[in-house]
């Protein structure tokens, strides 16, 4: 039944990120897929499953069918999935399950969009949008407002400080500085974060993710097939998911997200624990999002996330490097797809300047909405 060690990620693709003016989403998705297949040593003819994150800005009816047609594929299975930023890990576990069930053999999972140039074209303001019919009247019109509810509550319950949240932003930026394909590459200090303007208190500008153009993709296949391909396979040891709500007012507990339930399940399937994780690519739409997931994944106790991120613990060279690519906070907002890509890269040993030495086991998480949806994968070197 379990997918553990039955499937592997054998190819990854990543487009340039930041601003890609004039690029329609389908061209971004196609490029990411072309790069991932090239990396896997496979072609469009080998693909029998295509999963795509549903487009956010200009949704298209049956978009993934347009995409596979564009790519000259005739897959057995296709679908768009939309659990927000939890989609990439959700696509991975779906692909793994379909492959494990014998319903397909080579699955491509993709996310790609032009949110930065689209948003700017429409509104002239660069923040992601949350559109809820009765929340909009009160000014809950962008994700930072809702995530601020969780941050304020976490500070109230556990004494978490703005400086502690800032340490997360500083770490992501440090890593982005080592990543040529990152948008923000000027180092920042905790003071810089604290001095950056308020967006929705207690979140400063630098506590908030970027809005970006760009895309990524990965290829999943059977462990057997993986062993005959050109690159070292990255096995999916475990996967888990937990969804809790849509709107922040309906969250059972904004400081105790679904990650708390998913974490023990993914560890159990993988047969590892927090101490075994060498590198963690943690969905980071806001600094508070990372902090809460670090607690949920039992890297520290509940409420201790603030202390855990102090002193460089989550930086390269520290106890648990987090978001070695710079994350949504400093690399780009590619909906968590590049967290999967980076996790694979690290476990393969292809991290270059930002390689975690001897990284064998990676945790990758996804989060969507307002701490609404949560997914995770544990990847291991083949």
């Amino acid at each position, binding site marked *: 039944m379990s997918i553990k060690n039955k499937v592997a990620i054998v190819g990854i693709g990543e487009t340039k990120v930041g601003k890609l003016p004039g690029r329609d989403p389908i061209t971004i998705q196609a490029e990411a897929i072309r790069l991932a297949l090239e990396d896997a040593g496979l072609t469009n003819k080998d693909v029998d499953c295509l999963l795509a994150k549903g487009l956010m800005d200009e949704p298209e009816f049956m978009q993934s069918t347009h995409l596979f047609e564009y790519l000259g594929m005739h897959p057995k299975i296709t679908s768009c999935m939309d659990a927000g930023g939890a989609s990439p890990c959700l696509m991975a576990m779906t692909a793994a399950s379909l492959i494990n069930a014998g319903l397909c053999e080579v699955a491509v999972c993709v996310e790609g969009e032009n949110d930065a140039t689209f948003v700017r074209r429409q*509104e*002239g*303001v660069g*923040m992601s*949008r949350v559109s809820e*019919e*009765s*929340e*909009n*009247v*009160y*000014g*809950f*019109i*962008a994700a*930072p*407002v809702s995530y*601020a*509810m*969780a941050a*304020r*509550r976490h500070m*109230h319950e556990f004494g978490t400080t703005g400086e502690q949240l800032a340490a997360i932003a500083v770490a992501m930026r440090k890593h982005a500085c080592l990543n040529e394909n990152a948008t923000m590459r000027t180092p920042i200090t905790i003071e810089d974060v604290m001095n950056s*303007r*308020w*967006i*929705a*208190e*207690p*979140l400063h*500008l630098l506590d908030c993710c970027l809005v970006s153009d760009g895309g990524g993709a990965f290829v999943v296949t059977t462990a057997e097939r993986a062993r005959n391909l050109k690159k070292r396979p990255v096995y999916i040891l475990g996967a888990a998911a937990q969804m809790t709500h849509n*709107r*922040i*007012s*309906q969250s059972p507990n*904004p400081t105790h997200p679904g990650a708390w339930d998913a974490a023990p399940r993914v560890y159990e399937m993988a047969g590892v624990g927090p101490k075994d994780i060498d590198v963690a690519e943690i969905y980071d739409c806001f600094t508070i999002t990372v902090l809460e997931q670090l607690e949920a994944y039992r890297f520290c106790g509940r409420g201790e996330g603030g202390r855990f991120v102090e002193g460089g613990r989550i930086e390269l060279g520290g106890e648990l490097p987090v978001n070695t690519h710079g994350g949504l906070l400093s690399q780009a907002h590619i909906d968590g797809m590049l967290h999967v890509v980076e996790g694979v890269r690290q476990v393969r040993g292809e991290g270059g300047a930002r390689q975690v030495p001897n990284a064998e086991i990676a945790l990758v998480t996804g989060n969507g909405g307002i701490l609404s949806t949560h997914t995770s994968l544990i990847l291991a070197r083949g």
Partner: protein
Amino acid sequence: MTTEYKRPLPLPTTDTKPYWEACARHEFIIPRCRSCGKHFFYPRSLCPNCMSTDLEWVKASGRGKVYSFSVVQHPFRPEWKDAVPYVAALVDLEEGPRMSTNIVGCKPEEVKIDMPVEVVFEDLVPGVAVPKFKPSSR
């Protein structure tokens, strides 16, 4: 001279129509399930606790507590420029449900978690009112 209200107005659905009609009369009503007895918000066509469709609208006390809040400083869209800073909040109603709202009637820096609040209606345009919350007079 009338200035057009450019920020979002409520968009009544089949579930919320009675709610917004009551709001226009400055009456604060919330749904309650007759099967399991729980109040819930936002309005739905069935009870999110037990799935019963045996529902009723009840007059809520209007009292609650601040669960969390944020002083929003950044106007995400041009029409919010003259609204910032405003206080976005989650309020726990006395009856149980939690709702998104604004805290008004005090300085943003005076808002605290667990602060007792009570409902106050604000007319956004003639005939369209939304419930907001102000510090409780008690």
